[in-house]
């Protein structure tokens, strides 16, 4: 496969009068294949936006190299911009324009037709808001319009910087469907997010980022498997005596308190069968390791949103 993006040892330090020096990006390298859905996952301030802005060609790195569709994104080249679509962290619209005027203006800038503009509104589900002023849209609708503007030029490569931040869960799920469909159309998508479930649900591969560094890159499943973490099985207390729980654990961990009995097992199938035979499945919860545990493992500290 061809690489859509190759990033090598990026460095960026901000120097503020009050804040002093901030190493926002510190030796970041990664590669995104054409057609891939690639995620950068990290808490606020991890350096996701800065990395993305350097890759897009908005910022110049202090060091390192970026190849975007085989070219350098700096300085800005119209031919390259034509092939990529961008949704920035803050929605940026022309003031006082309606949704339709907004998308049509962007269409003109990318040399796309009005029909294409209308089609994009349809795809993001904003056709019925065409006459609404952009500033009156809800947060989720603004993000959709932003994405429509990113797609109107029919790009090969799409950058989405935290599109679901500050959205309610329903609006977030709706956007997930939209983002999946963008990738299904064959476009390479680079998404930044600070939601674990989002990265897990959408991305082919995820880079876990913290304090300006990328600590791990792989598919979510591989990252979790790599942890080699046990599955936690919880049932409500009062169904099993402490001894019986110990027996069922067969040498693995079992802990009881007033509310629940918690097993940690590497063979969940055996344990669950045994629990079912025992008739002790009330309040059952099975939790496998997730990206949160991966984050804890690679950073040595708890995930904070």
């Amino acid at each position, binding site marked *: 496969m*061809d*690489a859509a993006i190759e990033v090598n040892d990026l460095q960026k330090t901000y120097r503020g009068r009050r804040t002093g020096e901030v190493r926002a990006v510190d030796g970041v390298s990664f590669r995104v294949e054409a057609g891939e859905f690639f995620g950068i996952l990290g808490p606020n301030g991890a350096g996701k936006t800065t990395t993305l802005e350097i890759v*897009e*060609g*908005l910022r110049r790195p202090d060091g390192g190299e970026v*190849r975007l*569709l*085989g*070219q350098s994104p700096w300085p*800005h*080249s*119209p*031919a*390259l*911009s*034509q*092939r*990529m679509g*961008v949704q*920035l962290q*803050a929605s*940026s*619209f*022309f*003031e*006082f*324009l309606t949704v339709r*005027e907004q998308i*049509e*203006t*962007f269409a*003109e*800038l*990318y*040399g796309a037709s009005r029909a294409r503009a209308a089609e994009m509104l349809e795809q993001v589900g904003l056709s019925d808001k065409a006459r609404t002023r952009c500033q009156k849209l809800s947060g989720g609708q603004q993000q959709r319009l932003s994405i429509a*503007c990113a797609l109107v*030029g029919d790009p090969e490569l799409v950058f989405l910087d935290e599109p679901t931040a500050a959205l309610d869960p329903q609006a977030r799920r709706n956007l997930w469907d939209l983002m999946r469909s963008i990738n299904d159309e064959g476009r390479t998508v680079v998404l930044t997010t600070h939601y674990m479930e989002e990265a897990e649900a959408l991305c082919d591969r995820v880079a876990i980022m913290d304090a300006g560094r990328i600590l791990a890159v792989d598919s979510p499943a591989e990252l979790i498997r790599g942890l080699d973490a046990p599955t936690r099985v919880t049932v409500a207390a009062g169904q099993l005596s402490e001894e019986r729980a110990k027996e069922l654990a067969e040498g693995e961990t079992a802990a009881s308190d007033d509310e629940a009995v918690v097993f940690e097992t590497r063979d969940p199938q055996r344990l669950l069968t045994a629990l079912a035979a025992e008739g002790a499945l009330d309040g059952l919860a099975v939790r496998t390791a997730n990206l949160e545990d991966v984050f804890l493992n690679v950073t040595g500290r708890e995930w904070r949103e």
Partner: protein
Amino acid sequence: MSVEAPVRAETGTRRPRAFASLVKALGISWVRDRSQVFFNLILPGMFLVLLVSVYGSNETPVPSVLEVGDVPVLERAEPGDFEVSGAADLDAALEALEEGDADAAIVQDGEAVTVYYSQTNATTGVIALEQLSALVDDVNVAVLSEAAPDTPVLELETDAAEDNSLEPVQYLAPGILAWGIAISGVFGAAGTLVDWKRDKLIRRLHLTPASAGTFVGARITVSLLVALLQTALFLAVAVAMGMELSAWTWFAVPLVLLGTAAFLAIGVVIGGIAKTGPGAAGLSNMVTMPMAFISGAFFPLTAAPQWVQWLSVISPMRYLNDGLQAVVVQGASPAAVLPEIAFMAVFAAVVAVFAWKTFKFDEL
């Protein structure tokens, strides 16, 4: 491996289309912003109407005078010089003065004439005082001339030095127009930059095939179009107020465009410093207000102290004002305003370079 982007032949021809659509988008948002429309298109005209009616009437107001007791000297006044009414006694008259109900009170006791004048209405009070003392002088001259008919007496005639034919609207309009152009340019550029910093729109546009340069060019074009529209509307109001336009009035177009360029450059400097909309407006005010006063926008510079006249040398508003006055009112040919044109061009260039060098592009 590296993939060469296909060279797109239409990228070059697309630029005019991108430019046109940006001008259209920015124009629409400008027109929909009612405060812009009011501030740029209506306010200068309102100011003209207001100032013409303040300075406008050439007649001095007729002072109202309270006659306390019998004042024979008033009988010698020309009819219409004063508006005389009687007062019961001096106390009542003084009270009326304090209330601002009259401009002066006059008492005559034999040869002694006493004038009390209002300090509530300082201006009309002084006018009343001057006219009353002129009246007393006239009476004295008449008495003396009668007593000694062979002795010549001095007569004082006064007349305004300026061309009497220049109606107030003629000398006020160019100054107010220059001020209007200045506030549109300075506030417009400063406010726009602060908005851009907030909305990050320019970042987004930088990542389209149309460059940020095309976008900035489109924004400047909108400002220039606004300035021309503003000029046309303002001159229409001025004509309605009795202004006569010279045959060279069309040359206001390049003057206004050049002036706008200079004011936009100032606005860019302010927009580079300011962090918020109110901050930008405050700083813009701090620049345009004093500039209006040192540029003769609201009153002729000849009436201002010397130091103000010196300061005005560095104000682009003064050159725009002078240039407009020359071509629109006095009908001077464009050649006569070459110095004004040169100054505004140099000023715009210097400030634009300064703005470019000091601007923190990172904030956009």
